[in-house]
């Protein structure tokens, strides 16, 4: 079906209103304001900055623990302490080792887990607040609009096509059919978060890959309201050990918030060997540890969410600039996997992108020649200083925790070099071993009070989608699911998706894949962890997805 699309022009188009995208928008708007007021030519306008956000509201799709290093925010919004919705400063940083029955607090908290000077925040609230400032600065933020396709031009990009709205589940236009827009921009900034769908396309098409493939972790989070006195606000603990084996890279977090709330979660690297491993079940099991049971007893689940994060670090960072395009934030691998800090790096990358774009707008040249300045800025900023030190960190753990500790200790004393530099790695989905006839595990049911099954948890994510629309999860060959995957890997999508989207249902002639797309929480795990790489996460009709507001 050929669709007539309305065309619009912007100076700058930012896909994603997360910390990176919004920092880019705000910093650029501020630069433009100063430029105009000092008579700079050509005159620029913050109104020509468009930000697309697929969520229903700013912050709706933002999920993180989260602990934030305030250094980037201090630069972007001086005096932020007065107005920013920071929940509580970190008061105590603990590293805990869990065994099945007990827990040990490491006597001296290792430096990566020491969070003194940082804040426990709700990333969603922070983003919503920041978005308000961005809008007051004149930038156009379009909620409920996603970037569905890139407009390619020359060696780079010239804009984005937004998603079609009002198609029924068979792809036929409904009465309120509204085609996506062709948004042209001098510079397009991809700020889509981990495993951005446009970023994935661009990296593949323009061969922007680095020497290592990106590795991702899946973080599953619950927000609880607990009995008074169970947890201190600002108490920050990271746990290692039970229930994860030493071969599985991952750990838990417990962050005490104000008002008797606690943020808990488990992050697991999506490079585990057992395709039948269920991260959601592991998370629920982790909660039954006496340490957690004690905190959660008598409390109630308030919210649930899940999202991936990029562990790959410096050597997995794609080339971040092309003609007319820049990549910022999690889409560009700006996350310190050792310290588990990405918010300030995302914001800083957005700000450096803004400075680069500012030069391009002034000179009128948004080609890679100008935009290359972005890479230079990154290399001379604390982004590189921080990420360079841990450039081999995640890779050290590919043979298990013990190896990892040894190798990373070497890296610690050699500025990140360690025994091998660069340490190479393989894509996470190549780690699966075949199941060789192993039967499917019994699905985790939960007790309904402390632990929950997936569907109950998904309900608490507030996720909803327009039901009558095409399925946004594109599987290129469903036959593989019913024939090869069923034999080789036992259809791991049923286990790794934290939102109960995928299930294999029995049919007369074997099994068939059923996709409950309306449950999707936009975490991108399926796109990342599917062993055949046949799942393509595409953007659904804007407004759909989880509701992490206030979380």
């Amino acid at each position, binding site marked *: 079906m050929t669709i007539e699309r309305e065309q619009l022009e912007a100076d700058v188009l930012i896909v994603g209103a997360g910390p990176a995208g919004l920092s880019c928008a705000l910093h650029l708007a501020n630069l433009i304001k100063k430029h105009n007021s000092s008579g700079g030519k050509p005159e620029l306008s913050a109104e020509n900055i468009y930000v697309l956000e697929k969520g229903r509201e700013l912050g709706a799709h933002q999920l993180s623990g989260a602990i934030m290093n305030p250094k980037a925010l201090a630069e972007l919004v001086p005096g932020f302490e007065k107005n920013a919705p920071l929940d509580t400063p970190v008061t105590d940083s603990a590293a805990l080792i869990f065994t099945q029955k007990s827990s040990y607090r490491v006597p001296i908290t290792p430096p990566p887990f020491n969070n003194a000077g940082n804040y426990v925040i709700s990333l969603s609230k922070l983003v919503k607040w920041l978005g308000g400032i961005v809008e007051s600065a004149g930038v156009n933020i379009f909620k409920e609009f996603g970037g569905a396709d890139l407009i390619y031009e020359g060696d780079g990009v010239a804009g984005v096509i937004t998603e079609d709205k009002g198609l029924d589940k068979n792809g036929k236009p409904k009465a309120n059919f509204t085609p996506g827009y062709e948004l042209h921009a001098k510079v397009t900034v991809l700020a889509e978060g981990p495993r951005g769908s446009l970023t994935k396309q661009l990296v593949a098409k323009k061969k922007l890959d680095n020497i290592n493939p990106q590795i991702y972790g899946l973080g599953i989070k619950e927000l609880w309201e607990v009995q008074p006195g169970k947890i201190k606000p600002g108490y920050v603990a990271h746990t290692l050990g039970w229930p994860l084996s030493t071969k599985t890279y991952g750990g838990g977090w417990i962050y005490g918030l104000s008002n008797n709330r606690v943020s808990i979660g488990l992050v697991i690297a999506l490079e585990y060997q057992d395709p039948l491993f269920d991260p959601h079940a592991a998370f629920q099991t982790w909660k039954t540890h006496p340490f957690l049971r004690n905190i959660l007893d008598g409390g109630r689940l308030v919210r649930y969410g899940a999202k991936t994060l990029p562990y790959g670090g410096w050597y997995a960072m794609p080339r971040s600039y092309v003609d007319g395009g820049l990549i910022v934030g999690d889409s560009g691998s700006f996350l310190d996997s050792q310290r588990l800090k990405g918010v300030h790096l995302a914001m800083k990358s957005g700000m450096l992108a803004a400075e680069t774009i500012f030069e391009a707008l002034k000179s009128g040249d948004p080609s890679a020649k100008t935009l290359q300045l972005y890479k230079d800025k990154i290399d001379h900023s604390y982004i590189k200083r921080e990420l360079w030190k841990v450039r081999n960190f995640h890779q050290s753990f590919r043979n298990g925790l013990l190896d990892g500790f040894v190798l990373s200790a070497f890296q610690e004393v050699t500025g990140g070099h360690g025994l091998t530099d660069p340490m190479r790695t393989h894509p996470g989905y190549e780690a699966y071993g075949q199941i060789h006839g192993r039967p499917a595990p019994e699905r985790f049911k939960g007790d309904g009070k402390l632990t929950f099954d997936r569907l109950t948890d998904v*309900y608490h994510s507030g996720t909803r989608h327009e*039901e009558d629309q095409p399925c946004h999860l594109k599987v290129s060959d469903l036959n593989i699911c019913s024939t090869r995957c069923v034999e080789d890997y036992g259809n791991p999508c049923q286990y790794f998706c934290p939102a109960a989207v995928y299930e294999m249902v029995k049919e007369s002639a074997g099994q068939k894949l059923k996709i409950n797309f*309306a449950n999707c929480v936009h975490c991108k795990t399926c796109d990342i962890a599917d062993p055949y790489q046949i799942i393509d996460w595409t953007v659904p009709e804007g407004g759909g997805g989880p509701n992490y507001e206030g979380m």
Partner: protein
Amino acid sequence: MKILVVTEQRQGKWNNTSFETLVAAQRIAEAASGTVSAVVIGKGVSSLAEELAAKNLVEVLLVDNDLLENYTPDGYAVALKQVIEAAKPDLVLFPHTYQVRDFAPKLAAMLGKGMVGDCIGFRNEGGKLVFIRQMFQGKTAADVTFTGAAPWFASFQSGAFRADLLAPRASGRAPVNPAKVELSANDIRTKPLELFKEAKSAVDLTQAPLIVAVGRGIKAPENIAQAEALAKVIGGELAASRPICDEGWLPMERQIGSSGQTVAPKLYLALGISGAIQHVVGMKGSRTVVAVNKDQNAPIFEIADYGVVADIFEIMPALTEELQKVR
């Protein structure tokens, strides 16, 4: 306490929820030492008034007027305002019907009063009447009290009381008294035209008093016919949990749950439904829930009044047969 119930009829036929409201009135009268009267309004409806005279009421008021033959909001409001001013009840009760929603709040406002609508029950707390209604689409209940002097106006949700429990008069008949109202054609600004029935493309499950719902346990679209037969014999509507509608085995309008309809029928028969929270939030307001499921640990049993741990393919035909017998 004097309670006046405004009953509803159309073209000489009762809207049966009127009887539920009469029962509500009788209950309140018991709790608050009151009396119950009723008003019948329309044209040529004296036989309906006579029918009510056999119930345990102290009086039946008959408003019979040419201009009230067809319902209009103006006609009913102007007429009933006069009836209420003359009868001076403390509490005026209505069934919460589409028609009542159309005029009753305004009627109350004309008398300077407010209306507590769509109540699901009441309580007598030390002499004060507390009306219970739902808020947040049934997620919470609310206790509401009236402020200020009588008359107070309230309507009750269909199914909140059982019409068959309307007590008859022990002896004799209640007086049927004509209530005179001054009504002119100029008072009535809208003109009702023809009534018609439409093969509704959309089914409104929220209005169905009896619902038979199927879930995953139905296994295949061909099996839905069995549930349909059961729904037919019971006089109920067919509904489903989301997976069934997702597959296209039943249209989306029949979906019950957080992404479908929220219903509160008299009877909800859940066949092969596990009871995931997404479904339960759409039906837990049902008065009586019967669940049939093979899995004794299915969460649906937590909210069921009657549970059957069995194969739905054995229960459905047995139940259909049994219901045929008592039809």
